[in-house]
Each structure stands twice: as C-alpha cells, then as structure tokens.
C-alpha cells in the first residue's frame, strides 16, 4: 500500500519534471544549453550514440563499483579497529576527518601522478565512499544499547568477539544507511576521477562533449549517471529493508 503510494508520488514527481524540461527546451528558455528532452532521447537511441553511452556507462559503473567496495571496506575496517583497540579510536577519527576535509578536486591531480590515470576514478570513488561509511558505522557503534554492553562485559568478552557478536550486528542498520549515501557518491567520485584524464568513462564523455558543444551527448551522459546513482541507491534500500526484517530490528 505505502510502496504503491510512494511509487505513485515518484512517478508524478518525475513526469512533472520531464514535462517541465520538455517545455523549457522547446521554448529555449535557457538558450541552446537546454534542448528539449525528446531531442535528447532521440539522440540517445541512435545506435551509434547508444553504443558509446553504454560503453562509457559500463566503465563508470565498474570504476564506481570497485571504488564503492574498496571505500566501504576501508571505512568499515577503520571504524571496527577503533572498537577493538580503543586507544586507536581518537587518532583514527581525527585522521578520517582530515582525509575527508581534503577536497576531491585537489586530490584528483595528485592521484593521477600517484596511482595513474587508469585507477584514479576508482580511487576518487573509494575516497568519497569511505568517509560516509566510516561515520555511519561509528554512529552505529555509538547506538549499541547499554544493556548489550553490560551483557558482553559481564562475560569478560574479548573486544573482537564483542564486536563480531554484539556491536557489529547492532551497527548494521546504520552501516547500510552509510552505504546508501556512499553509493551515490561513488558514482559521482568515479565520474570526477574520469574527468581528470582517465582513458574512458562517462566523465571523459562529459568533458569531451562539453568542449565540442555536443549538447545532446552531454545531457545523455548526465542522465545516465543520475539513473545509475538512483538505481544503486534503491537496490541498497531494498537490501536494507530485507536485512532489517531478517535481523528483527
């Protein structure tokens, strides 16, 4: 019932936006920069452009996925290690905050010269994901009920065992919230990384179409990036709902 209602709201929202876009494009309210949506679609379904867009999207998706997995793992592991070795926690918190404070834009060129053009998109994606997942996991640990802590302490439980049996399952819902946030930033991070000079991907397509004033290609690439982000987000939301039900939380 609520799912259907949510879906309806979504459809209404998106179709309103699409209709508005079409009108704005036809009336050329924003000049040549915003073509009508139908024109963008017509361009995108031409076999040659479809092939180009899908190939680029596939590369970006791969970069974003690697970055997402690596960034999530690092974020989770760092948050967990702070729980096992308490003295580490403060230092790791500070380090992570500093790493997050470095603008990706500044890091991009540094990555190009260190990890190389090929891997820069994955690295920027991983960096973007890392902090969201790290903070969310830490937040999850903070929310472990006191009575659960007392129970683990009353049996003289080793830190790593308490983490595995009590703290981590408690932190899972929050961790998944972090993953949901992270997955959209992973796509953004990958595109940004490609922008800095990767061999291929949506980011490369966006730069070259912008410079060559291929407006329809530019919008097509932007739309595909958005759809990818949103699809990954919803996939994770679905997974979260399932998992929470399984965990009885």
């Amino acid at each position, binding site marked *: 019932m609520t799912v259907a209602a949510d879906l309806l709201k979504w459809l209404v929202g998106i179709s309103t936006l699409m209709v508005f876009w079409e009108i704005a494009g036809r009336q050329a309210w924003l000049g040549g920069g915003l073509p009508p949506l139908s024109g963008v679609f017509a361009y995108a379904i031409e076999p040659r452009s479809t092939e180009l867009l899908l190939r680029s999207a596939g590369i970006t998706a791969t970069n974003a996925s690697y970055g997402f997995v690596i960034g999530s793992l690092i974020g989770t592991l760092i948050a967990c290690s702070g729980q096992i070795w308490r003295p580490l926690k403060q230092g790791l918190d500070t380090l992570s905050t500093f790493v997050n404070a470095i603008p990706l834009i500044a890091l991009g060129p540094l990555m190009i010269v260190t990890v190389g053009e090929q891997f820069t998109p994955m690295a920027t994606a991983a960096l973007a994901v890392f902090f969201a997942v790290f903070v969310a996991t830490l937040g999850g640990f903070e929310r472990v009920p006191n*009575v659960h802590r007392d129970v683990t302490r009353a*049996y003289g439980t080793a830190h790593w065992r308490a983490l595995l049996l009590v703290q981590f399952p408690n932190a899972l819902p929050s961790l998944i919230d972090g993953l949901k946030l992270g997955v959209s930033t992973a796509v953004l991070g990958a595109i940004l990384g490609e922008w800095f000079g990767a061999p291929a991907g949506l980011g490369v397509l966006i730069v070259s179409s912008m410079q060559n004033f291929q407006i329809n290609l530019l919008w097509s690439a932007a739309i595909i990036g958005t759809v990818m982000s949103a699809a990954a987000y919803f996939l994770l939301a679905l997974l979260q709902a399932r998992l929470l039900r399984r965990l*009885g*939380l």
Partner: protein
Amino acid sequence: MGDLENCVMSNTSHAQTLQAVAGKPREAESASITGPSEIALTNVSKTFALGKGQTLDAVSNVNLNIAGGEFIALIGASGCGKSTLLRMIAGLEDPSQGSITIAGQSPEDCIKRQKLGIAMQEHGLMPWLSAWDNVALPFRLAGLPVDTERVDELLALVGLADFAQALPKQLSGGMKQRVSIARALVLKPDVLILDEPFGALDAVTRRLMNNELQRIWSQQPTTTILVTHSVEEAVFLADRICLMSPRPGRLALIEEVELNRPRGLDTMHEPEFRQTLAKLTAALDDVCTQGSRQ
C-alpha cells in the same frame, strides 16, 4: 535487628572467605573455587564526578557479608544507589573506596572466569537471535563451545522449550525476561545479579514471574542479589532484605525473612508474609521521608 551486627563485616580475611564456600566443584579449570560464592563488601563507597568540580555520592560506606547460596534483595527509593551497588558487585563499575570480593576474588576475576550471571530491567536480548541462540550467547561471548543440552535444559526450565526458535519481537514481555534469566543462568554462575528484572512487567505477570524465579532458584541455588522497587517481591524471594537510605546510599536496615521454602503464590497470604511486608514498607516510608526532610 540483632543480625545487623552479624552481617556487617569487620575484617574477614580471604582465607576465611574461602573456607566458608561450600558446594560441588565445577569441572572448569578454576578448580579452587566451588559452588555458590560468598560475597564480602567492605566500606564500599562510590562517588561520581559530575564535571565542573561537582561530585555525587551514590553509595556510602556499605559493609555487607552475603553467604554462599543466599538470596539478598536490595530495596530503597529511586536513585538511592541500589543499582550502583549492584553494578559494582557485578564488576561493571569500580568502587571509589572499599573493596568487594566474591569468594575471595575481585569481581573482575569473577567476570573473567564467567562466574557471574546478570539480568536487567531491559531484557537485553539480541533482536537478531532466536530465544535459543540468545540463551546460548554467553557460551559464544566467553569463547566456550556451546553446550546444546544445557541450553535446551535452561529453556525448558523457564518454560519456553516450545519457543526456542522464536525471535524476541515474537515473545511477550514476560517471556523475554524468562529468556534473559535463562541466559543469566546458562553458564552455571556462582553469583546471579538481578537488576529489577521484572520492573517493566504488569502486576499479574510480575507475581507469576516471581513465583517462577523462586522455583528456578530453588532448583539451582545460587548466591543471588536482586535490586527491586517492590517490597512484596523482595519479601517473597529473599532470605534477607537490605533497605538502603536515600542518597548517599547507606544500609539503613537489614531484615531476615523467616518464610519457609519452597514458597508459592499462597505464601503471600501467610500472616508472616503480611507482617514482614508491613514492617518493611513502614521502614521504607520512614527512611525515604527522613531523606526528603533533610
């Protein structure tokens, strides 16, 4: 109040404490300690720092000697330090002053040897684990192999054998507390710590649960310390009742309960029960009003 002097410990040495311990030996590697443990509290005080130089005296100078296998109830007004005292005995807080020994050892040692069972007002069950797995959790937390027969036995003891696979959210409040008590008992603890385990239950369920606890306890006598707001609960369950004064918590009165065991629901209708209840209720009111007048 002749027993007050008996209970107040002056200088019990560890050797004496160990001598007093009786019961069957545990097969665990810690062969020196056996059976329900004697607990000795000597000049125990707890002061919390509230920040900005302010402090709060929660517990002040408590002396108490609990015999092995004894059931003690701690009663007193809200915020009188009962739970703090209990948490210190359980090794979850350190006393600011004084010492606590369980069978001659510190509470921390007791924790390391898994000799403690705790159940709190919040059941503290892991929502993602079935009733069975929740009862088995202490084995896993302690890094011991799970004794499945023992878990089955405990679930049967608390009358939940048919609910082994149910998740906590599928159980009623009373059932969750029963799982929590089964969990507290599963490692055959020498000391059972109960902090208002039935505080969140309705009156009828609470009486039934008291009866259950009494039955379970008589089947495996364990040194037990119960914190409760209910004088009725304390009289029904305990061998001795310690009444604590309002903050800073001191032992104001220690009352022996002269009711025969096993006790059942009809015990509550005995004149002896009524008398003890009336006496303690009056004493509690007295102690609390004195506190508020100060």
